[in-house]
């Protein structure tokens, strides 16, 4: 396979800088199905920071609103209670989002890309490079604030949704280029 060597070399270089970090507790949580645990890459920890910030902002805003409404309508005790319950809700959300964040993982193998995700419904997609039609890199406003992007792979099948969120911009660009290159090299017709 020509082109694999420089790609992986580059990959190793990049992943040292935190993108492909595998903290020990994460790799323990996902003794992945039948595939060797080695070599899984994960979204950047910044993704978790982004999710946390999103939850915090929403919680604070909602908590303030609810608190004020209940304060005005029923008095200080109920206002505090409302604030507390909103905070509890936010904490629960953060707990679930943390689990979800940890579940994301991907691995570039010789001929295919594997993406795993999900906590409640666990999914693992294997997409051969030759089947990729195009690779899409998107970054929403919040993602841009955190310098993150989402890489999405499109195949001819609508069901095979391989999506990797929370990649640092450089890693996303690297993945995009590498996937495109491999996709072209191995492209197969319909």
């Amino acid at each position, binding site marked *: 396979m020509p082109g694999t060597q420089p790609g992986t070399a580059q990959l190793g270089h990049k992943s040292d800088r935190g993108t492909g970090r595998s903290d020990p507790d994460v790799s323990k949580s996902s003794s992945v199905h039948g595939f060797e645990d080695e070599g899984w890459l994960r979204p950047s920890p910044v993704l978790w920071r982004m999710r946390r910030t999103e939850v915090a902002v929403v919680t604070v805003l909602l908590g303030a609103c609810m608190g004020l409404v209940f304060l005005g309508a029923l008095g200080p005790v109920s206002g505090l209670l409302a604030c507390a319950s909103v905070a509890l809700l936010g904490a629960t959300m953060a707990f679930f989002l943390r689990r979800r964040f940890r579940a994301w993982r991907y691995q570039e193998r010789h*001929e295919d890309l594997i993406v795993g995700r999900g906590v*409640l419904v666990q999914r693992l*997609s294997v997409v051969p490079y030759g089947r990729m*039609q195009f690779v899409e890199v998107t970054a929403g406003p919040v993602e841009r604030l955190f310098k993150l992007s989402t890489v999405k792979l499109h195949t001819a*099948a609508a069901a095979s949704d391989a999506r990797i969120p929370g990649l640092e911009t450089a890693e996303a660009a690297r993945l995009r280029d590498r996937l495109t290159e491999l996709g072209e090299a191995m492209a197969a017709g*319909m």
Partner: protein
Amino acid sequence: MTEASSEAEALPWQRLHPLTPLARIGRLAPALVFLVLISTVHSKVENQTAETDYLVVITLGSALYGYIHWMVTRWRLEADTLRIETGLIRKDSRRLPLARIQAVDIVRPLLARLLGVSELRVRLAGSGSTDGRLAYLTAAQAAELRLRLLAGRHDPDTLSAADERLPMAAVTLGRLIGSVLLSLVSLVLIGTVATLGTLDQFEPRTARAVGGFLAVYLVSFAGVVWRRLSGQYGFIAVEGPEGVRIRRGLLQTISETVPYGRIQAVRQVQPVLWRPFGWCRLEVDVAGATARNQRGEGTSVVRKALLPVGSAGDAVHLLDRLLGAPDPPRTAPPRRARWKAPLSFHFLSAGHDATHAMCVTGRINRTTTWVPLEKTQSVRRVQGPLQRPLGLATVHVDVAGRRTRGEFRDRTVEEADRLVAELTACSRSARQHVYAEVGNRRGK
């Protein structure tokens, strides 16, 4: 004749059939009839004479449009492309490379049949490109052009022998009517009409009120039933060199081809009402570009009825020809899957060999799906919250399009893991095998 002179094989530019404007008006006929009906009813109610001026205007206008369209449309067959140019104000010039043609269908609406003309529809491979249409050509011209277009991809000598083959499957009128009657839509229709009829005996006013309320649904249901009957009337499938050729239709006849190499998946559906008769339906998903799917969510795939209704023997015969391999051995999921899928467990089974995956799902409609593994787009393993405590997981084999996939439902976790690895490997080798073969053939 600027660039054409360089190409020896290029034919001169040609117009469509002169009766094209007339045949095109035929497409408007149902709408016109509807308008006339409405205005007649309206004038009866209002006690006025019906106004028909606008009908004349519409007819004349569309005739003029059709005539201009005919004037500015021309087509030409070049060495390796079919060119279609049309449009007065917005020019539309299409080149359809013969090598990328997936299928060529001939469609003949009722009026076109009366006028002796046919429409040719060309579908291309790959997404994003629109298909080409030539409406209308003479029947002989259409048939000849179709042969020429398809001959671009195949040996001409196998093509000539094509028309002498025996039909692979045909649907008799009785069986077609039976199958349509035994479908949910017509049962609902018949049931409702019968209930209303009985109700009319005792409570005419209620019956009329309910009938008026349901009329729209009844009419649309009847439309569905009618479309099934008229669309599949006289269905016959013949083996051709490039694929299975299908001819069908009562008022509008369609002859289409299901190309062997383009089949993404085959489905056999056995609805519960058909099972006592041993009937089944065969559907194939064929890759092809249509203008409808622009959202980029998967390549558009055309689902075609390969056999609207047939006996098990017909199905086996067709499947054998299409897949060219014996069915892979299947196994059922473990008994504990009954807790997760109490109904569908009955039929659940799946299996694969080196080239095909075969999965059976469904309870009311027993559905068997065959997926040629070289068409696999991705393999997925999904484990839902109900499956986890039972130690089960589902493995999906995705193929192009958004509707079909092979599902190895509710297998044990160990088997699912093994399946993901095996199916990935088998898909890869099947793909390499098939495309190496294609490469060899092109090389020759």
